[in-house]
């Protein structure tokens, strides 16, 4: 019964604190604004950078963590290489002997311009064992048609973006696609080639370094014929188990020394996650600084409020309010500032994070962006933890900020307080 009475009493004290807060509307609103902005900035920055991280991660994760890409050391970004070491069938045979390796798919990769109904589109042409496509890219499906059989040099698999260009005529299934292929093994010559669109891929987006949607896949034999060289642009190595990836990578790097570069999507993912993690912490701390400034604002407001209400505190003491009741009243005021500020901050932060999405666009997000060219708006990520944090943290800060002023109020000498003008 007594306990219930105490609960009731604290509720009444809380109501009194609310009235005091409402009584000084402008000042309370300004203090709350400080908290709102601080908390909104933290929320928006963290949600956007988490969104950025999630966007990049999803791009990279499309390439299975059990896939390693082998390229010669000089030819990391461009097709063809001036490096003396060239990857050939011997390397494919060797790679297959490494324990844990289940398959090795050599590929050729060139730049090309596709002529489609008079419009020219920039694309990549990749020649490889086309049956390996679903193995390399998780969730990649054929929207129309079927994957050509091995050795079918006249058929091609068309990426969704090539088949459905932003401007120009769409490419239909079984339509003839003519292309001008450039940059074959360092040569400046352009080779024209025509294939039939045997399959059109579903919309997929970017996976690691390749934009699947803007790629035309042809058979390995056709690509080799075009390149007129037995040396590949690279080799995809499939490892049976993700736990073995590191061992296989070590084995390859040891064997080839600096002659080849091994790219592991898992490794890239972890280093990018570490970068975006640091970015999140960095951006979050910018928000934290603004929230800290807002907290100092609360200390100031509460302190001034206690000074202004010295006489009122004297009255409360005279009519029998205990020190802890007075302390609770002032702490409630501070906490309430945090509650309202946190809630408004959540709403403002939500809106702000979508605006910030634009700021980060081009770095990552919805399929395009990051390594894959193009650019899109990133989708902010609001985790439950982030939402709870952005509601609770301002309350904690505000309450801590109110501690000293509230303590001072509770310790005031009643006689002196009552004389205060």
């Amino acid at each position, binding site marked *: 019964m007594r306990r219930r009475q*105490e609960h009731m009493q604290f509720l009444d*004290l809380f109501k009194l604190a609310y009235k005091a807060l409402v009584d000084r509307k402008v000042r309370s609103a300004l203090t709350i604004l400080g908290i709102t902005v601080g908390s909104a900035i933290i929320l928006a920055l963290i949600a956007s950078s988490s969104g950025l991280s999630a966007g990049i991660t999803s791009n990279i994760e499309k390439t299975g963590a059990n896939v390693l890409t082998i390229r010669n050391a000089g030819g990391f970004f461009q097709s063809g290489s001036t490096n003396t070491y060239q990857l050939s069938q011997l390397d494919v045979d060797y790679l297959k002997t490494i324990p844990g390796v289940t398959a090795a798919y050599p590929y050729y990769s060139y730049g090309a311009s596709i002529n489609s109904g008079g419009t020219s589109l920039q694309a990549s042409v990749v020649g490889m064992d086309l049956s390996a496509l679903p193995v390399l890219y998780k969730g990649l499906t054929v929207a129309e048609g079927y994957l050509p059989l091995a050795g079918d040099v006249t058929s091609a698999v068309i990426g969704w973006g090539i088949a459905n260009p932003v401007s120009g005529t769409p490419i239909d299934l079984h339509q003839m696609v003519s292309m001008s292929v450039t940059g074959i093994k360092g040569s400046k010559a352009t080779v024209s080639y025509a294939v039939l669109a045997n399959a059109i891929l579903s919309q997929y987006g970017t996976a690691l370094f390749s934009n699947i949607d803007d790629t035309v896949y042809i058979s390995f034999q056709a690509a080799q014929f075009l390149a007129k060289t037995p040396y590949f642009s690279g080799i995809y190595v499939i490892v049976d188990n993700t736990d073995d990836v590191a061992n296989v990578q070590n084995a390859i790097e040891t064997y080839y020394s600096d002659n080849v570069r091994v790219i592991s999507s898992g490794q890239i993912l972890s280093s990018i996650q570490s970068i975006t993690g640091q970015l999140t912490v960095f951006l979050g701390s910018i928000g934290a600084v603004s929230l800290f400034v807002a907290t100092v604002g609360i200390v100031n407001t509460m302190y001034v409020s206690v000074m202004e209400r010295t006489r009122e505190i004297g009255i409360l003491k*005279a*009519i*029998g309010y205990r*020190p802890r009741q007075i302390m609770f009243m002032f702490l409630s005021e501070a906490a309430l500032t945090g509650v309202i500020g946190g809630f408004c901050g959540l709403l403002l932060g939500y809106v702000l994070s979508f605006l910030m999405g634009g700021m980060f666009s081009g770095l990552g997000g919805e399929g395009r962006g990051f390594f894959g060219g193009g650019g899109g708006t990133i989708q902010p990520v609001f985790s439950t933890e982030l939402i709870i944090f952005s509601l609770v943290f301002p309350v904690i800060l505000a309450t801590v900020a109110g501690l000293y002023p509230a303590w001072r109020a509770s310790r005031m000498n009643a006689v002196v307080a009552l004389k205060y003008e």
Partner: protein
Amino acid sequence: MIAVQARSVPAVETIDVTKTYRVGHMSYPALKGISMKIAKGEFVSIMGPSGSGKSTLLNLVGALDPPTSGKVIIDGIDLRKLNEDKLSILRNRKLGFVYQAFNLIQRLTALENVAMPLIARGIPEKNRRDRSLSTLKAVGLLRFANKRPIELSGGEQQRVAIARALVTNPALIIADEPTGNLDSKTTSELVDQFVQVNEQFGTTILVVTHNSEIAERTQRIISLRDGLIEKEQYLKRIDSYPNKAIK
């Protein structure tokens, strides 16, 4: 029998109370040894020139300030034995204060101001409201229950303050120059109010005043000078008090 026992405990008793203020190395004795008893139901005034120690005595009796030496006993309770929390509870349950400056909380309505001491005591809202309304009715301000102090005249504000002091049914109401800010007509009405409270509820009232007209309407005048009781003057025979003090 019970009534006799209850009456035997004075509402206020001070035993050789002194209060010395220290500023740096200087000492200023405000009270130099005050011993007095105020019976339950008594209406007493304290008079004296400025600096005679009236307000200091009121602060000691009001449990707001401890004496330098001596004892203050309120309704049989020795204040020296109480800590800060218990002193607060004692002020809440046994004492009511009325000040010259009214000391109402401006953002609250008359009703809310009156209910303030009941919140500190943890009385539920419904009960609080009923008690506050009936106390406001007793001081004739029921129709102003939802007005804020700024909307009320000085006399009305002071009556709200009396209602706030009265709502906890205290053993003693302490009034420090309650009419200091009021004109003579309102002063007279307010003194009527105090007399009515004293007679109707049997509440013990201790009032500090400069105004001899007010003092003359109380039952006893204690005159202070230089921190000592100069004289005491009984205006009515003590056994003529109403027995309503025993509740």
